[in-house]
């Protein structure tokens, strides 16, 4: 294996991994705090990309502000959906939240086809050009996206560790009953967490959408990836989601380049299966009953 090829695979792996992690962290927050299965997570990823598309491609407004607007919009949509659809199901069998989120997938992705049209769209990049790194080509666009994702993940980590709301979120995630006894308003934490998680998916959608292309049916693929990563890393664990994201990103990059795409897919699932068999609650996860 030549060095340039190895560098290329590593850079692609990091880039993919960070973006996967961004989607997965949102999901793991929702999972850990609310203990529901949010199967429509990828739909927010799709909606986020479309908000940015309308903002920057149609209205021609500034790109970076668009990401903020997208995150804000999806935060509100997520919070409202939590209050309307998921709050009534709190404490009930998790299959009900699974069914509701499945219904949401049908509604949002088909509604997306109806409103946004079936034609694939693209968000023009704002950064162009690139640089040669150890024989591999690295575009500035990918570099900026990787740095942006990493910064966002760090910021979130800081938020969870240092701010009052963040600490309340962690408390609810660890023990909902005790934390509500301690005076934490768990209902408030729930909608904040749902909005925040969805907004993270939206940001990932914006970045992926710029790098690739967007279509109303792209959400499910993101859901699949996010689920693979969250389960791999363990439910409710932010570092787990980051490491899981990088593992899946590296498998996608290395195995696809060295062997083939279908083998990469099979290996991804086999890895999850094996990890779960030896560590039944993922790499860093909490045990559920």
């Amino acid at each position: 294996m030549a060095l340039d090829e190895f560098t290329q695979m590593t850079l692609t792996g990091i880039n993919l991994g960070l973006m996967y992690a961004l989607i997965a962290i949102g999901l793991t927050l929702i999972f850990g705090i609310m203990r529901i299965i949010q199967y429509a997570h990828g739909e927010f990823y799709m909606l986020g990309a479309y908000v940015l598309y309308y903002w920057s491609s149609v209205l021609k407004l500034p790109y970076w502000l668009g990401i903020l607007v997208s995150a804000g919009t999806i935060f509100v949509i997520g919070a409202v959906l939590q209050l309307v659809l998921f709050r009534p199901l709190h404490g009930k069998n998790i299959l009900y939240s699974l069914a509701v989120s499945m219904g949401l997938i049908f509604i949002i992705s088909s509604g997306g086809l109806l409103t946004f049209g079936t034609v694939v769209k693209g968000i023009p990049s704002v950064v162009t050009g690139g640089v040669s790194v150890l024989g591999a080509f690295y575009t500035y666009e990918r570099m900026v996206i990787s740095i942006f994702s990493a910064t966002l993940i760090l910021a979130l980590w800081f938020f969870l560790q240092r701010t009052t709301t963040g600490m309340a979120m962690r408390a609810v995630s660890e023990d909902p009953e005790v934390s509500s006894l301690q005076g934490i308003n768990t209902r408030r934490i729930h909608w904040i967490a749902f909005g925040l998680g969805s907004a993270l998916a939206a940001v990932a959608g914006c970045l992926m959408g710029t790098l690739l292309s967007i279509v109303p049916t792209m959400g499910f693929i993101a859901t699949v990836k996010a689920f693979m990563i969250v389960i791999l890393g363990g439910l409710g664990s932010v570092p787990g989601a980051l490491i899981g994201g990088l593992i899946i990103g590296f498998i996608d990059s290395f195995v696809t380049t060295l062997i083939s795409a279908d083998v990469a897919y099979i290996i991804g699932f086999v890895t999850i299966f094996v990890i779960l068999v030896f560590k039944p609650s993922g790499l860093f996860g909490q045990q559920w009953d």
Partner: protein
Amino acid sequence: MTENTKMATGVWVAAVAFAFLLPVICGYDKYILHVGITIAFNIALATSMWLIWTLGFISFAHAGFMGIGAYTSALLFTSLGWSLWINMWIAAAVAALFAFVISIPLMRTRAVYFFMASWAVGEVIKRVFAYYRGIFGGWDGIFNIRPPKIDIFGLDINFTSRVAYYYLALVCCALIVFAIHRIIRSRTGAIYWSIHESEILAQHVGINVLKHKVIAFTTACFFAGMTGALYAHYHTYINPKTFDIWQSEFSLVHIIVGGLSTLNGPVLGATVLTIVDELLRPAGWYRVIFFGVVIILTVLFLPGGLETVPARVRALVARLRGRSD
């Protein structure tokens, strides 16, 4: 209580009798019979998935095991020329065998982790069918899987006839539902629900939890494999995409909308949702949206699912009567 049970039995007998008379009622309309066959497959799949649920978990690999059954039967037919009559049992046995082997490591995981691990199993099964083109025909799948014929006691039936296949599907579906009913009504069924309630408690009273989990999973996959064989010989064509995660998810939706606590749930859910889906067909791109709306509304406004409707109606009637008095 006994009166209720009696009534429930009566409704079941009436439903089965109605299903048997359906071809005559609908005037042998091939489309309605087609919907009927689809409903039979969906019921078989949903009830066998529900059997796993009685232990407290949901398998997303269910469609994968249906696929193993379908491919086994199809390959036996295309390469050896064996008919469905033999293949169906071999298909079910092969699906059960794979289920048995995989369930031992799989059962280490629990709750949501089990969902994901079983999803991985289902995806790998599907991908294996696609990857080995020489054996399974790759994404192209297998064509020309013919329905069987019967020629005994002067009876000569060709199951390419829609009516004949409808009865075949109906009988198999009824057998599967009845078998699951017997399992759940037996002592084993009580053990399953006790594991569902509390695994630790069940373990403490001396129940071998792992053994029961493995047996239930294997049994359910046996039925799924059987359904798969019936599916393959009806559609005459199968490919890996038929057995992907969505097939399992639709079965899950059937169970949730129908109701989780009794066998009526999956049967009702599969029947009603299949009909709703067919009625929505001309709605084009609104079809999927309305399907989603139906699911969400049922979960939010009909907790417990369709199976609770008779009790709700009775309660409502009682309340109305009470008010008028």
